């Protein structure tokens, strides 16, 4: 089943930024956050955001009937 795009490019940019930031603090530079579980949480959230940005589709948006993508 084809994934329907529902993210506007600004939305994608914000998610990419958030995703990279969270992955950086979660997995790359561990000196800022000492708690490992917290780092993992942030890292996973970062991956989720980056994945949504890459696919240009947010599953939560799809369920909530939101579409920021404008043709």
């Amino acid at each position, binding site marked *: 089943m084809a994934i329907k795009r529902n993210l506007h490019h600004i939305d994608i940019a914000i998610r990419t930024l958030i995703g990279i930031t969270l992955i950086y603090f979660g997995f790359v530079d561990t000196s*800022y*956050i*000492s*708690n490992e*579980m*917290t780092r993992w*949480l*942030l890292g996973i*959230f970062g991956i989720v955001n980056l994945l949504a940005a890459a696919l240009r589709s947010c599953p*939560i*948006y799809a*369920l*909530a*009937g*939101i579409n920021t993508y404008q043709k």
Partner: protein
Amino acid sequence: MPLRLKLILSFITISLMVVSIFSVVAYISAREYTQHVEQVRLHKSNEHLFAMLDTSLPLLAQLQNIVPHHENRDNVFSIIDISQKKILPGGGFNLGTHLLADLLIQSGNKTQQGSFTIGKQEYLWSADPVPDSQYIIANTYLRNSSDISTFFSYVGTPLSTTLFISIWISVWAALLLARVFRQISEKNTQLEYQASHDLLTRLPNRGAIGRSVQQEMESAKACNEALIFCLVDIDALKEINDSLGHKSGDILLDQVTQRLKRTLQGSGHIGRFGGNKFSVMIKRSETVNAENIRHKLLESVEPIYEINGHSLYVHATLGIAIFPEHANNAQELIQKTETALRTAKKLAIDSSVYDVSQDNNSAERLRLTHDLRNAIHNEELQLHYQPQFDVRRHEIGSVEALARWIHPQQGFIPPDTFIEIAEQTGLIQSLTDWVLRTAIKQCAEWRDMGKYLTVSVNLSARNLHDETLSSQISNLLHYWNVSPEKLCLEITETAMMTNPAHAKKLLKELDDLGVRLSIDDFGTGYSSLGYLKQLPVDELKIDKSFVLNMAKDESDASIVRATVSLAHDLGLEVVAEGVEDQMSQDELSRMGCEYIQGYHIARPMPHDELTAMLISTKVKNNTQTDEILAGVQANRL
């Protein structure tokens, strides 16, 4: 504020509150835990101090010697003499005074722990009795204010992360919930719309029309205005549905809707009342009244429709009622409009404004129906008999039984009124039963008196559908031992023609019984002579409308003459009713009419009056006609 935003804000607030509560609880728990850890440490320091004491040397001197060497920022000692209730020199004297009160309250032979504050500084302490002595060593620790910042340095980041993730998840949840709410709300709106609108024309349906009428009536009442409510009945819809299919019917309804909307131009309310009926409600004003709205609606609805390549002419019928003239509430106004519409259809006219005289369902009429039901059940009706004069035998040979109703409150109710009610409400069956019972019984009484009269009873169209009628009549005749030919059943030609096949069957059964059958009000209906000749009838009764005017109107006289001739040719006897003068009677006698009936002979009268008359006029004797009539008329007066 949009629901989605409201939910997002609510969820973020809840997340913040949860994280805040969690932080406070965690902080309090952490404080309690660190206090416990510090107090255990203080206690262990005390025990370490005691381990250094030599029991063979003076105890106090040793304590005062050792304690200063062990004091540091985290351990401030006080030496307390329990027996003297005072703090001894050699330790953190100042801090010790704060402990003394607490320690003196408690027993001094076991470890005590607690805390106190001086200004904004909090101190933790652990007081342990020096073994085998009256001394207590209290070890005090000034709690570091950086404990809190240390705590937050540990939990701050996880808490912030948790808060961030909680808010993120909250926003997701809020978005999803907003979607669910929106879907439920859309579904409800859709259901509400479906419940109150006709889906084909998208107009309000009957229920919504009722509510809308009520609302408009209330506002009109407040402003002292009038409302015109119309029902537009599209006559041809059924034919179009049957011949061109329902799709064409739907197109017609849609086009009618568009035309009505164009006509009213938003000045009134249009609704689909059901089936082929539309409702229109509009405020009455100087320019809008029942007459011009009627014209407008008919002009708008009736022009030719182009449906699927067919040009169709559609006829519409309008019923109109006005608030406040005709009704005070919505239900009543709609009811009155329906009555007006029925009247228009019944009279085959384009439109009708409600008229109380045409309302068969008025409260008064309903009361009368109820009273009639009781009157029949309680046998409160009276049966009058109108003599029919036998021209050939010069005697009163038969009588027509006619029901009369004297209402306890309203007095005499015209037969036309209550018989119409009886026919419309189905009471005619019971009424006919009662008339037959009473008339046959009376016939038997007259026979017992030696008066061999034939009694005529009127049947209505509804009686012709009664499968049990012939057996019922047979039973009654048998019960009262009355010869069947002494009962004549009068049926109007219109009644016979409503269901000719059924009427023919029933008349055959009645004829087989041997009762006489008469066609009543002959000449006023739409009977077929070809059909009538097949019926087993014995006589024709010429309608009084022809007889009344025959002396003045030659056409009526010709009709009567032709009818008498026709009847004779068909082998039927003729009764002429409505004879009100001698001239008519003479003329009818000349024409060969067998029986005459009318006010000239006698009015309908109660049985005792008729019995008295029969006795006094010696009906059985072969006296002259004039004498009989003179006697009859004398009795009548």
